[in-house]
């Protein structure tokens, strides 16, 4: 099926218009194909340069997504895909740190398990991995820097809007089962993971991450080979990636090639210097103590958050008629308890109706019916999780632009 971005459609429309005349071209080319013809809407708060360069563009095998950067590829999912709790594989966001992205052949792919914190070593092929007891978890994968582009003042990095996230049903082997097979020594403190992707030049630090042993041995920490019932897309880590439910995407190593138990904290660049948050600024429970310093700590679990998906900012609605605002909520794995919605800019709040519960790690759909009066209607949504954490009213600024969970505001125009 040909993949058309908006730009290509416009180019094609121009060409066709020359041949067939404007009437024919428009009727053919603007036929409703909601997803491929989706217009690009970007949050006004993004940097001006981001808004100018971002386009809808399709990577091979993917729907048109919001291209923020070609190489390494960083593409976010348009908000309309989040109207359902499960994000389709071909619309799932793509994020790479380094531009050396090999094709991984499943037949020749090998995963090495070992390290100085393990008693033995093991090498597995994809069939060996699939032969292990399978586990499934529905979990949100969200980039640490999702919504970085909304930070004021702006901070450098990939200037994500709302879509550096997705929720999928992941199937794979438990990491714990593999560690049991090689024998985890009691001195082991971290599990170090590496993937097949690498830097363009040798001097750039390879993207290697670690997680604490306690998180590695949780029942839901998987080496996944299936995503929503299908093999992982190339751009999302084929043939196998780490699944660390509740924690931000930086730990979910794609194209996984090695798992090493370590008796000392891993001190590579991507742990020691990158993906750190100031100590004490965020209400997170999960700690990564072997990596903490006096001033900062690795990012761990996601903070509670929500997104309004039913209406874009500035959308028109009918006055004095029932309207439904809806969206999703998620957190670091404690589960969503309530989502409160305000339709009067925060003066009063009402509990939204929660949708199907796909588990504590998943997106939770919510909706709220109300009758807008004529004029501008400011809608806010605020999620609270089962341990009582809520979204922040004011941005918690931090140098790398992580954990943006400011209560979102959407203004509707009722007329």
């Amino acid at each position: 099926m040909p993949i058309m971005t908006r730009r290509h459609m416009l180019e094609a429309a121009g060409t066709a218009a020359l041949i067939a005349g404007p009437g024919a071209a428009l009727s053919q080319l603007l036929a409703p194909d909601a997803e491929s013809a989706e217009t690009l809407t970007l949050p006004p708060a993004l940097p001006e340069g981001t808004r100018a360069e971002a386009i809808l563009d399709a990577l091979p095998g993917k729907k048109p997504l919001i291209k923020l950067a070609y190489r390494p590829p960083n593409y976010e999912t348009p908000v309309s895909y989040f109207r359902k709790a499960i994000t389709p594989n071909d619309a799932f966001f793509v994020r790479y740190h380094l531009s050396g992205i090999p094709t991984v052949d499943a037949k020749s792919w090998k995963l090495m398990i070992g390290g100085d914190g393990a008693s033995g070593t093991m090498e597995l092929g994809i069939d060996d991995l699939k032969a292990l007891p399978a586990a499934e978890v529905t979990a949100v994968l969200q980039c640490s820097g999702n919504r970085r582009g909304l930070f004021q003042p702006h901070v450098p990095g990939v200037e994500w809007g709302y879509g550096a996230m997705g929720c999928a049903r992941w199937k794979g082997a438990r990491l714990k089962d593999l560690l049991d097979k090689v024998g985890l020594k009691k001195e082991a403190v971290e599990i170090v993971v590496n993937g097949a992707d690498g830097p363009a030049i040798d001097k750039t630090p390879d993207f290697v991450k670690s997680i604490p042993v306690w998180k590695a041995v949780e029942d839901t920490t998987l080496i996944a080979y299936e995503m929503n019932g299908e093999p992982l897309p190339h751009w999302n880590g084929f043939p196998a990636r780490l699944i660390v439910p509740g924690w931000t995407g930086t730990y979910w190593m794609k194209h996984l090639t090695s798992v090493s138990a370590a008796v000392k904290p891993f001190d590579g660049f991507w742990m020691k210097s990158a993906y750190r948050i100031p100590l004490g600024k965020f209400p997170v429970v999960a700690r990564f103590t072997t990596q903490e310093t006096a001033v900062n700590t690795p990012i761990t679990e996601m903070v509670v958050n929500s997104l309004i998906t039913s209406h874009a900012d500035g959308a028109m609605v009918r006055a004095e008629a029932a309207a439904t605002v809806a969206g999703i909520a998620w957190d670091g794995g404690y589960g969503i308890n309530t989502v409160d919605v305000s339709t009067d800019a925060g003066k009063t709040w009402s509990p939204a109706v929660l949708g199907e519960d796909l588990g504590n790690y998943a997106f939770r759909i919510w909706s709220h019916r109300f009758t807008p009066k004529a004029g501008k209607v400011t809608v806010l949504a605020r999620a609270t999780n089962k341990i009582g954490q809520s979204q922040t009213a004011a941005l918690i600024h931090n140098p790398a632009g992580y954990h943006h969970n400011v209560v979102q505001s959407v203004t509707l125009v009722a007329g």
Partner: protein
Amino acid sequence: MRTIVIAIATASLAAAAFAAEKPVQLKAGAGLDKVEANCSVCHSLDYVQMNSPYLNAAGWDAEVTKMINAFGAPIDAADAKVIGDYLKKNYGG
């Protein structure tokens, strides 16, 4: 043309990220040649546009320094200065 690009990309996914990359034209100005020659070795040049126009002179200097010290970009001091000056002048804020 697009069909051909997709066909090639499908044949070799390793090249897909590059095949899909369209040329990014940064603003004309002194030093653009150095930016194109050095920065695009590791990343597409839309990273520059994306991070604009809000970094001040110190902010752009810090980015160039990070590319050299943290990411090992083989850029000599003279080129680093030219690149920094270009970025501040054309994409500073």
